[in-house]
């Protein structure tokens, strides 16, 4: 059963996401960062959906279990689009947005295919396993893609503070989730995970809110100061 800590974390999660959307709309970032708004709105909708299913069917029910993992996979795919949007911003001057979009779709389909193949090879072949496998693999692909993007940004001497902080916070998020999924595989059924996942889920809306509210849109920062600070 869920205790007061779970409920308060759930509420805090919901609150930071609402604040993030309000901040994004207030800063008129809707068109420029459309995918971020879509992701945060989807996350709010998923939170409400999870809560209502948990209230009707219970935290340990199969309905909640299925909904949790399917919605998580959908959110990961949304976040994947956020990452593609960041790629498009970084490479905007090169005019390769179509290529980036095509590549992203191919990678997404490839990840889904590999995940399906991994589940089809296993003995129980549960559909739920596919979605968990897909989530895990997408998080890891997300880590690799963010790392490549950050590498490209340092090579291109990207100096937009906004973009740097968005990419780095997305990288932190993907790495945290990929790492915790891997740890969960090694030590399954650990109770602490449900608190850790809630805390980690707050990272993106909190860091995005900070970036959009406190960092001016036209702020610039030499990449070298991030790589080798205090110079």
């Amino acid at each position, binding site marked *: 059963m869920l205790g007061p800590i779970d409920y308060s974390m759930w509420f805090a999660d919901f609150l930071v996401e609402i*604040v993030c959307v309000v*901040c994004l709309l207030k800063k008129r970032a809707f068109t420029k960062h459309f995918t971020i708004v879509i992701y945060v709105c989807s996350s709010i909708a998923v939170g409400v959906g999870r809560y209502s299913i948990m209230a009707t069917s219970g935290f340990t029910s199969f309905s909640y279990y299925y909904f949790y993992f399917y919605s998580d996979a959908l959110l990961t795919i949304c976040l994947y689009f956020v990452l593609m949007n960041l790629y498009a911003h970084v490479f905007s001057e090169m005019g390769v947005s179509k290529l980036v979009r095509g590549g992203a779709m191919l990678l997404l389909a490839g990840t889904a295919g590999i995940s399906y193949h991994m589940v089809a090879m296993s003995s129980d072949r549960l559909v739920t396993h596919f979605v968990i496998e897909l989530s*895990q693999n997408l998080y*890891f692909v997300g*880590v690799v893609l*963010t*790392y490549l993007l*950050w590498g490209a940004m340092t090579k291109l001497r990207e100096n937009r*503070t906004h973009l*740097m*902080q968005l990419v*780095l*916070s997305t*990288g*932190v998020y993907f*790495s*945290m989730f*990929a*790492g915790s*999924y*891997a*740890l969960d*595989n*090694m030590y399954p059924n650990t109770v602490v995970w449900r608190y850790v996942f809630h805390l980690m889920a*707050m*990272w993106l809306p*909190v*860091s995005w*809110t*900070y970036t959009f*509210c*406190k*960092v001016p849109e036209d*702020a610039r*920062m030499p990449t070298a*100061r*991030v*790589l080798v*600070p*205090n110079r």
Partner: protein
Amino acid sequence: MIAILIFGISFLTLLQFFVSYCHSLIAESRAYELSEQGREISGVTGRIVRGDQFRRLLQLIAVCPEPGGDSGQVRAVSLYFGLLGLVRVLFGWIEPAVAGWIESERSGCAYLAAVMLDRRIAYNRVLMARQMSAQL
């Protein structure tokens, strides 16, 4: 085996992203000039804030109502500061240059905390002024 590999890679990338993210916050705060009132309240003189002032600045931040949006960053930088402390304990004695680098990083964290405190003080002053004008 694959889980261990994924965990290892994710942990290393997490460290790199997190450290770079904290560096970006610190570098961004360097552009901010502390106000005279902020300096006076936080007890900062000059442009350099010593690393050992970080804890005191955090305590001052905790008693100052927040304008919203920076509490997560305060926590992130506190975590980075703690991480630096751990690195100093583990490796600081091996190479004195490491200790110097850690101190400059801690000083950056302290400057960021001073900037956050300054922003909060400015926000509260504006709120107070508004309240005073509404009462009149």
